């Protein structure tokens, strides 16, 4: 038998399922290398299942628990959820418990838990973020996760691969977020069809890990199961700095002649900043064509849009400028470690100097939790991933999506604005 050529996704799934090769459409059972859960869909939902089955987690060392949704507690109910999470992690002897240290998708790699080739399940839909590290990571619901925690395994229908190749250098003021909004508009929110997206090309090779994370994170908005980027030296450097071991899968790529469903090519150099109009990331287009809506709120937050580089993008626009009167700018750094880094390098001072209001590190208003939600009829531009109707607050609120550059420029103007005008001028 001649060896079959395999995509990166197939190589990882074959390894995790203990086979030489797998084919798209096959349903296989995989051993899970790591399971990540958070306070909202995690302990409070899986605990009753484990109790009913009379078992504990299969391997506490392979479980990471992150409290990021109800943080910090804002009422007795959210406090009780955080307490339950803490007690469950202790009872199950889970050492990798991060209590209010930031958002799970950012904390997981920041603390060195991911490396290329891993098969990882996360109890959150933005789990494809781990794909940026060459790990096959995908999101599941709480009952699915309970099954993983009990058995250490889960089933998967081997996906086809959708190759998204980007070549060329991104212009100044254009970022990974703009690439993703462009992809949402081009492919639609079901363009990923629950298959594996794989990003490649010279643009991707040149991107920092934090920007690659934005691409993989929003594979969720394409409806893909994961968004893979093959591990390279950039990946290995990040992992070593995070105190992890890059492992032997660095440099492993899909075979060049492996069959994929479709390949799309994009030119990064031709990309404008993108803005998504309410109520879908797929309603995206060039900022030049966007309606220049007046905004009540600008929001820089979430796993998608508040990593260190995201805050630095916003700071470049905001340094020496002021948020428009009648507009509020909230910044919720994605982790406490990012807050410390942004404080050390002057980024936070640029943000707060412009009038930004700092919020705790957590999922927050992105998912309609906690501080920063919107009133009826209010308009917001946000660096987050989703602008579904009512998600960030009242049902009649309107949410636009943009990059941190675009959100910051819009905060200064009090209406949706092109960030390139600010970057070209330099500090005012």
């Amino acid at each position: 038998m001649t060896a079959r050529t395999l995509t990166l996704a197939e190589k990882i799934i074959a390894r995790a399922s203990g086979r030489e090769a797998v084919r798209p459409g096959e349903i296989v059972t995989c051993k899970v290398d790591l399971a990540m859960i958070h306070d909202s869909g995690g302990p409070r939902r899986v605990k009753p299942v484990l109790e009913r089955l009379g078992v504990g987690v299969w391997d506490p060392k392979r479980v990471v628990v992150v409290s990021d949704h109800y943080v910090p507690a804002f009422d007795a109910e959210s406090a009780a959820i955080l307490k339950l999470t803490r007690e469950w992690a202790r009872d199950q002897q889970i050492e990798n418990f991060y209590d209010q240290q930031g958002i799970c998708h950012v904390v997981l790699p920041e603390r060195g838990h991911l490396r290329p080739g891993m098969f990882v399940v996360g109890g959150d839909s933005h789990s494809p973020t781990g794909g940026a590290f060459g790990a096959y990571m995908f999101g599941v619901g709480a009952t699915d996760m309970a099954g993983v925690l009990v058995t250490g395994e889960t089933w998967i229908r081997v996906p086809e691969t959708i190759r998204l190749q980007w070549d060329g250098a991104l212009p100044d003021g254009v970022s990974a977020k703009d690439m993703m909004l462009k992809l949402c508009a081009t492919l639609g929110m079901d363009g990923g069809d629950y298959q594996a997206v794989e990003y490649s090309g010279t643009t991707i090779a040149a991107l920092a890990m934090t920007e690659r994370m934005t691409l993989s994170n929003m594979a969720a908005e394409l409806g893909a199961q994961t968004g893979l980027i093959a591990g390279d030296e950039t990946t290995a450097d990040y992992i070593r700095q995070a105190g992890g071991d890059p492992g032997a899968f660095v440099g492993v790529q899909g075979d060049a002649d492996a069959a994929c469903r479709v390949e799309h090519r994009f030119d990064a150099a031709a990309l404008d900043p993108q803005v998504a109009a309410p109520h879908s990331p797929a309603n995206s287009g060039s900022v030049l064509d966007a309606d220049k809506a007046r905004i009540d709120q600008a929001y820089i937050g979430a796993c998608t849009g508040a990593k260190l580089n995201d805050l630095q993008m916003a700071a470049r626009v905001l340094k020496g400028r002021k948020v428009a009167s009648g507009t509020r700018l909230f910044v919720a750094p994605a982790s406490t470690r990012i807050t410390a880094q942004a404080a050390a390098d002057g980024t936070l001072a640029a943000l707060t100097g412009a009038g930004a209001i700092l919020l705790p590190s957590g999922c927050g208003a992105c998912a309609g939790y906690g501080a920063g939600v919107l009133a009826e009829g209010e308009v917001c531009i946000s660096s987050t991933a989703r602008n579904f109707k009512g998600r960030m607050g009242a049902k009649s609120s309107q949410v636009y999506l943009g990059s941190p550059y675009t959100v910051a420029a819009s905060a200064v103007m009090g209406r949706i604005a092109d960030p390139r005008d600010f970057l070209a001028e330099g500090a005012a």
Partner: protein
Amino acid sequence: MSENAENAGRAWVYGDNVDTDLLAPGAYMKGPVETMAAHCLEAIDPDFAKTAKAGDIVVGGRNFGMGSSREQAAQVLGILGIRAVIAKSFGGIFYRNAFNLGLFALVCPDVDKIASGDLLTLDPAAGKIENLTQGSVIATEPVPDHLLNIVGAGGLVPYLEKKIKGAA
């Protein structure tokens, strides 16, 4: 096997991209799931949660259940008595969640042949819907065996319970 006509469920028909935030609004996430169920789909249809009856069926277009991994999106439908969702396509996580919670998710290219209020009977194993109101039969993709087994057990938890306690 097809169901009897007296088991027919009434169809609630919606369009494309019914997302998890519409099904399970984040604002009700920390309270009891029964409370959240009362707000299911209220942003697009305030009558749904108030008047849906046991045995009813939700019909969507493309990408039903897209968005969050919150399985409450499927769970609230179950609490309201919905026994199946029929759609052109599903968000992948919602699809898994539905079966895990004992709710059928049936992929059907011809959802346009179902109107709100139509009475339907289902045969998920054979991949068949009977529209009693319009007198038509509509094909669905057959459900994979391992998912039929899970939903047949009443969901993933009872399925695992049988496996674990059976092995003991």
